């Protein structure tokens, strides 16, 4: 056990490191066959808001023979103290050094946490390169949306779990426990034989073991299996049915970013927005019955004491049980004693009425994402939202008492013209006019702008990000054209969006850049005060690359992509078709309500 009592009084927010929260699980170390540390490579308050890790923590700890503990990235002050005093990274529950665990399981859901992941391995006392680790070290694994393009992080991890992690993590832990029991240990501490384990693990669906592949040389191309039995294409893991929510989640003492109970109501989305990675990689849509959702909410409130619950999904208004859940909650918790939040609001009056029935109408503003300013461009991205939908949604919002509306737009979309930008301004003024009829001078319209970051496995994966200079010009144009009482334009995207774009569609060569950037001192790249664009630019340059070229690079439709060895079930042919339709501004309907668009998921997973 690591002694941190001398450290805690010297750091900001010590509750990040203490553990001891309600519902945290402390198991007898020697009573289990395999142990995993679940790690989110950002601050505690960010990581604690991640539902995926909560689900895995709950699942593993429900098994009597398995154990899961947690670790997060220490802030700069704590890291400095730990390094100064030789304190290795430890788990919150038992305060054991992470290197004592069998598995270290990282959640990689944002490219801007990559350097933190490397830093955490280093703080744990492990070589960051998998090739330099041996039988003395835990196996280092990763999941999350970044596992869908594993190459940029491939040299640092022993394996990736692509897709739903619920079953795969338990299988990996059982495999580890079994091999240890059979005495097939390679290391002196009774650890498993790494190579034997990885070979077995590679047979599990959704598992990608980089060391069993020969990386492609130079740019482009995909890794090739080194031996028979290793799949050429790793198909993302899917669970057929969503299990119960974690009913006794750990309740943080300190305020988490999402400080509320979370119930996943559905996974996957079929709306088919062409910029959206999540809408492609989590198919098919899997819903949970309303009765189960209500039962979970009830248990969660009494087990945690939260006064707010979030109905989590990519598009909760599309969840078929949403009205039933809303009605039942209004009866069970009158006077909004439990607030219900919807993480994403569809742009229509149905969603507004739903939001109104779920929480106090005057609490804060409402956020909509029309994404583009003209109908043509909304059709390009397949947003499926009309001018009438937008006006209907905001009119309902104002009529129900809201006076503040936030509108989210993306710029740098393919085929975008100046008229599309002016369309954003026209829409903002139009919505202010509607608002003034209800809220008068209290009307506030906040226009929030972000740049498109093309991501793997989405139809826009072939596009480049718009040059940073052009993005800045476009934002300036919007700021000039949208001004006046009650109007504001927000642009909170620093140069880190360029980095995110450059990393997201990277290949094996990108890993050397990430390694260099970390060595140069980069970490907490998602935190504006820590982000060092200059160091990143230099890191790319040292590897013979240009960060802007990487962010802006376009792939040809016929080119082999660095993530072609990972299959989401959605076919490349479908993505290409969607990309071509985008350029012609042709809509593709949501297959949930209409005919099948043959995205490939039904064929790949035998149903959808």
């Amino acid at each position: 056990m690591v002694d941190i009592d001398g450290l805690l009084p010297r750091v900001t927010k010590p509750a990040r490191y203490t553990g001891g929260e309600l519902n945290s699980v402390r198991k007898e170390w020697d009573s289990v066959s395999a142990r995993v540390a679940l790690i989110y490579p950002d601050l505690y308050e960010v990581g604690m808001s991640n539902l995926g890790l909560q689900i895995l923590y709950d699942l593993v700890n429900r098994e009597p023979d398995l154990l899961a503990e947690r670790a997060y990235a220490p802030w700069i002050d704590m890291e400095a103290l730990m390094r100064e005093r030789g304190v290795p990274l430890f788990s919150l529950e038992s305060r054991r050094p992470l290197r004592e665990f069998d598995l270290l399981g990282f959640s990689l859901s944002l490219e801007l946490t990559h350097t933190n992941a490397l830093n955490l391995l280093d703080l744990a006392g492990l070589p960051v390169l998998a090739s330099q680790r041996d039988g003395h070290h835990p196996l280092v694994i990763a999941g999350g949306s970044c596992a869908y393009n594993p190459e940029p992080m491939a040299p640092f991890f022993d394996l990736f779990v692509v897709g739903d992690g619920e079953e795969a993590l338990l299988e990996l832990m059982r495999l580890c426990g079994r091999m240890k029991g059979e005495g097939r240990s390679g290391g002196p501490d009774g650890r498993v034989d790494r190579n034997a384990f990885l070979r077995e693990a590679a047979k599990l669906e959704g598992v990608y073991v980089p060391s069993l592949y020969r990386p492609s040389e130079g740019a482009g191309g995909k890794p090739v299996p080194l031996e028979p039995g290793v799949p050429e294409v790793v198909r993302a893991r899917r669970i057929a049915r969503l299990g119960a929510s974690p009913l006794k989640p750990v309740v943080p003492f300190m305020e988490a970013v999402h400080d509320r109970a979370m119930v996943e109501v559905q996974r996957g989305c079929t709306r088919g927005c062409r910029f959206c990675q999540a809408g492609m990689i989590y198919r098919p849509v899997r819903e949970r019955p309303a009765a189960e959702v209500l039962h979970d909410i009830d248990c969660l409130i009494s087990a945690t004491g939260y006064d707010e619950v979030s109905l989590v999904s990519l598009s909760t208004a599309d969840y078929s049980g949403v009205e039933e859940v809303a009605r039942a909650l209004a009866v069970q918790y009158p006077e909004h004693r439990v607030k219900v939040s919807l993480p994403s609001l569809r742009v229509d009056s149905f969603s507004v009425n739903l939001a109104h029935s779920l929480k106090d109408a005057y609490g804060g503003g409402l956020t909509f994402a029309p994404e583009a300013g003209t109908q043509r461009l909304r059709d390009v991205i397949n947003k499926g939202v009309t001018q009438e939908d937008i006006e209907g949604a905001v009119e309902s919002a104002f009529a129900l008492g809201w006076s503040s509306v936030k509108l989210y737009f993306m710029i740098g979309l393919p085929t975008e013209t100046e008229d599309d930008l002016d369309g954003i301004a026209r829409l903002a003024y139009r919505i202010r006019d509607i608002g003034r009829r209800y809220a008068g001078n209290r009307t506030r319209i906040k226009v929030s702008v972000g740049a498109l970051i093309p991501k793997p496995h989405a139809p826009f994966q072939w596009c480049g990000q718009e040059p940073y200079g052009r993005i800045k010009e476009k934002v300036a144009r919007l700021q000039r054209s949208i001004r006046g009482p009650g109007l504001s334009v927000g642009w909170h995207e620093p140069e880190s969006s360029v980095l995110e774009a450059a990393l997201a569609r990277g290949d094996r060569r990108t890993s050397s850049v990430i390694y260099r950037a970390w060595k140069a001192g980069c970490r907490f790249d998602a935190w504006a005060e820590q982000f060092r664009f200059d160091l990143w630019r230099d890191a790319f340059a040292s590897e013979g690359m240009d960060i802007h070229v990487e962010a802006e690079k376009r792939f040809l439709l016929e080119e082999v992509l660095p993530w072609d060895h990972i299959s989401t079930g959605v076919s490349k042919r479908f993505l290409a078709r969607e990309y071509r339709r985008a350029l012609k501004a042709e809509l593709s309907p949501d297959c949930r309500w209409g005919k099948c668009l043959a995205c490939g998921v039904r064929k790949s997973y035998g149903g959808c």
Partner: protein
Amino acid sequence: MGQRLRITFARGGRASYLSHLELMRMWERAFRRAGWRLQYSQGFSPHPRLSFAAPLPVGVAGEAELLEVYLEEPQPLDRAQQRLAQRMPPEIEVREVEEVPAEEPAIQRRMVAAEYLVVVPEGASPDALRTEVGRVQAASSLPRERIREGATRSYDLRPMIHSVGVERCIDGRPLVRMTLRTDARGAGRPDEVLRELGLDPAECRITRLRLLFE
């Protein structure tokens, strides 16, 4: 209608590092877990009627901390404590729940002092410590400076110290016991006293033993 309850609780170990705000949120959730509905203050942003006798500094354990809360619906006292204690984080313990007449003045206004026990770091010499304590006791004033929100403020620590003394050792580590003024005009900080004694508070284990009322 309604009910005013006084809760005596202890915190130690990992829970010692909670800030006052974090502890307050923890209690709000504890009451909701118990199914109790709190009364809310009137006004533009209503907040639950919940008050502590005195905030505990971060890093300080407490043996008998006091908290008062106003409930919408009275709870039977015999079951209240059990209900509350059922779902608490591991190192926060409900010691007692009692009913308080509504007309009694607020606890924070009746507080006069707090007693602390400090385990000082290994290697600190008891004799040197006794000398330091003697100096503090004999001093008529102890000017100190505190930096708060960037501004340096000078103040006299001496009138905040009612008593301070060195006690027998545990495992070779001397114990310092002190009673510090804690009232509407201000609270003596145990870490400041330790610094005055030449100790590093971060290396000490501080426990607030009890709160003293007029």
